[in-house]
């Protein structure tokens, strides 16, 4: 699922077999990180996440498309500013 960047990371995705280069599985750090990530990413998604999307759906059906998903009580107003800051320059 998350493999899309492997080729570019490996330097262009050429179909060269890793003859001289040590294989990734030989590197315990690379292999460990990859396994850890796969492990975390494959965890089943808790229902609470789907509930959140349900609230979004409900808001959409009401037509207003309001901020139904805003679960945090802390200053929802900063969400837009924060996201705006998150835009690529």
């Amino acid at each position, binding site marked *: 699922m*998350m493999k899309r960047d492997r080729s570019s990371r490996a330097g262009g995705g050429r179909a060269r077999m890793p003859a001289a280069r040590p294989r990734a599985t030989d590197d315990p750090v690379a292999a460990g990180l990859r396994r850890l990530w796969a492990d975390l990413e494959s965890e089943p998604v808790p229902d609470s996440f789907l509930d959140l999307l349900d609230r979004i759906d409900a808001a959409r059906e009401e037509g207003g498309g309001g901020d139904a998903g805003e679960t945090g009580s802390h200053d929802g107003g900063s969400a837009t500013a924060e996201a705006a800051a998150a835009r690529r320059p």
Partner: protein
Amino acid sequence: MTVLVQSAAAAEPAAPAVPGPRATAGGTPRRPAADQAFRAELLAIIPPLRAFARGLAGNRDLADDLAQEALAKAWAARASYTPGTNFRAWMFRILRNHFYSLHARSKRQVAWDPDAAERLLVSAPTQGSERGIADIRRGLATLPAEQREALMLLEAGFAWEEISTVMDCPLGTVKSRITRGRRALARYLDGPADGTIRKSG
């Protein structure tokens, strides 16, 4: 501009660029198709977003709260996202900013807070790939947060340039964090700290 977001193609045809800065603010109805596409993006990004949140917070409950709040923020701010641009980087950056703003507000130290289950895992004799993951987790816990983040983002499939966007730092800094993080992890895995359980049958 990077085009790593595969699902962007799906969002593209139905969702022309949002014209106004805040389509919902003045009561202007947003296009349902655009919202639908945005929701699909949110749904698809949940697993990697949770994984990254875990890398930031360590603890599963904290990480899930963090991820949900970030998703809610993203939904609230969807008008500021331009369809077809890098949704993953946009979303991960919201999560990261949210994480650090929470910590700044609570004046707490940004700390890795492992699950109880994970702490158990540390002492339990595990084996095979499971043990490898436990070792890496403990190793990551010893790293400075910015190195841990950079390594996780790389694992998430981001290119280095995208990582510099998400982490809001220069490319050279990203490279150095990744290099130092990997080196420290390698030292940790080689180190004598856990020598007693390194041997597995």
